């Protein structure tokens, strides 16, 4: 094997990416590419896991057995998404346990949308419709991400997400077509979730620190602002169709651009929530820590049992 300089390796790496050749786990990659991916995939995994909490809050109070079964399946899918993603991140050498501890210590981030409370049943509708809807918009381009295991995980995730969005839309449109009280509940929920959903696409392109390099590496394929615009454009007509009003007085169709113009996002609020000062940040992390601590004995017992059984088999083999 000829020995290549870092410059040459980087050039070949970028040429592969430019030619749309996927990068696989043991291929050479720049350290910064590995680090960026580990950060992004583990944040994504944490978001799926923490994202189970706001909806888990309503499983026992779902209005019917059917709604309960659907919500349970939806939340279980999110657990699956978290697991696909942790295992994708592990292919890059990420230590799963360390990464979970980083989440618990506040060092690692997760999507700030999950720091808002779920106050009414209508929020199960808003989350599926808007939060999963925004997640789909973010994730569909990631199916073409340059890193093979991440792209493959995203394909699985996207297949499952469309069920999530539809079940949410069914909940919210049922309420919107219900009694005046039910409709008011749906509207009130939309009022609370609309802006946080728009913030899910991250800072505006001009303020986004990682975007340019990530686009070059094809880790990110569409810019934050373009995705946000796409989301507004498809969601506003859906709201109109079910008779709900998007809580934005500056919202209007711009004939010339062929897009909706919309109001200014409160980035102060976004930064506050990211920094840990959202309504539920503390509660979410506490719940995750408790889950790990209270489940630890199960993990230890299962390992001890497996060890014991293995020893028994080893002894039997020796006897033969």
């Amino acid at each position: 094997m000829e020995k290549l300089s870092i410059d040459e390796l980087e050039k070949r790496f970028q040429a592969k990416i430019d030619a749309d050749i996927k990068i696989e786990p043991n291929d050479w990659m720049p350290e910064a590419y590995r680090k960026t991916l580990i950060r992004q995939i583990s944040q994504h995994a944490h978001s799926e896991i923490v994202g189970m909490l706001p909806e888990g809050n309503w499983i026992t109070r779902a209005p019917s057995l059917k709604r309960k079964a659907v919500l349970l399946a939806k939340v279980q899918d999110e657990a699956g998404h978290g697991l696909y993603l942790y295992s994708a991140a592990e292919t890059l050498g990420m230590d799963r346990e360390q990464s979970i501890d980083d989440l618990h210590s506040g060092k690692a981030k997760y999507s700030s949308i999950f720091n808002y409370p779920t106050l009414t049943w209508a929020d199960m509708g808003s989350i599926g419709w808007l939060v999963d809807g925004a997640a789909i918009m973010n994730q569909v381009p990631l199916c073409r991400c340059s890193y093979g295991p991440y792209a493959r995980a995203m394909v699985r995730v996207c297949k499952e997400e469309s069920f999530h969005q539809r079940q949410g839309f069914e909940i919210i449109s049922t309420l919107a077509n219900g009694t005046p009280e039910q409709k008011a509940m749906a509207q009130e929920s939309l009022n609370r979730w609309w802006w946080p959903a728009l913030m899910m696409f991250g800072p505006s392109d001009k303020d986004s620190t990682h975007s340019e390099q990530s686009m070059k590496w094809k880790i990110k394929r569409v810019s934050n602002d373009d995705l946000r615009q796409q989301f507004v454009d498809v969601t506003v007509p859906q709201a109109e169709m079910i008779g709900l009003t998007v809580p934005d007085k500056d919202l209007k169709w711009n004939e010339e651009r062929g897009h909706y113009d919309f109001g200014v996002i409160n980035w102060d609020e976004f930064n506050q929530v990211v920094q840990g000062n959202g309504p539920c940040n503390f509660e979410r992390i506490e719940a995750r820590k408790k889950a790990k601590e209270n489940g630890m004995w199960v993990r230890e017992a299962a390992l001890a049992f497996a060890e014991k059984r293995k020893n028994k088999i080893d002894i039997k083999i020796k006897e033969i």
Partner: protein
Amino acid sequence: MSTKEWPLWEVFIRSKQGLSHKHVGSLRAADSEMAIENARDVYTRRLEGVSIWVVESKLIAASDPKDSDAFFEPAEDKIYRHPTFYDVPDGISHM
């Protein structure tokens, strides 16, 4: 917090009779039995499989991507292994 981890397993799924098992991802489990049960819950919630294989990740031996050019090179210049290498005269059929 304790960091004693369960081993990592690679999961392979046969999506239906007649097809081979295909790698779908990995997961952590204390032993093979638990790995198969977890694989069912993580990777086949929508009937994506009729059979599951799991193997501990550390037991897999793999070719080295660094050497892959040289490693696969012997097949590169043997175009005569493909049927398109041969001229079939006009008028000859069923070949």
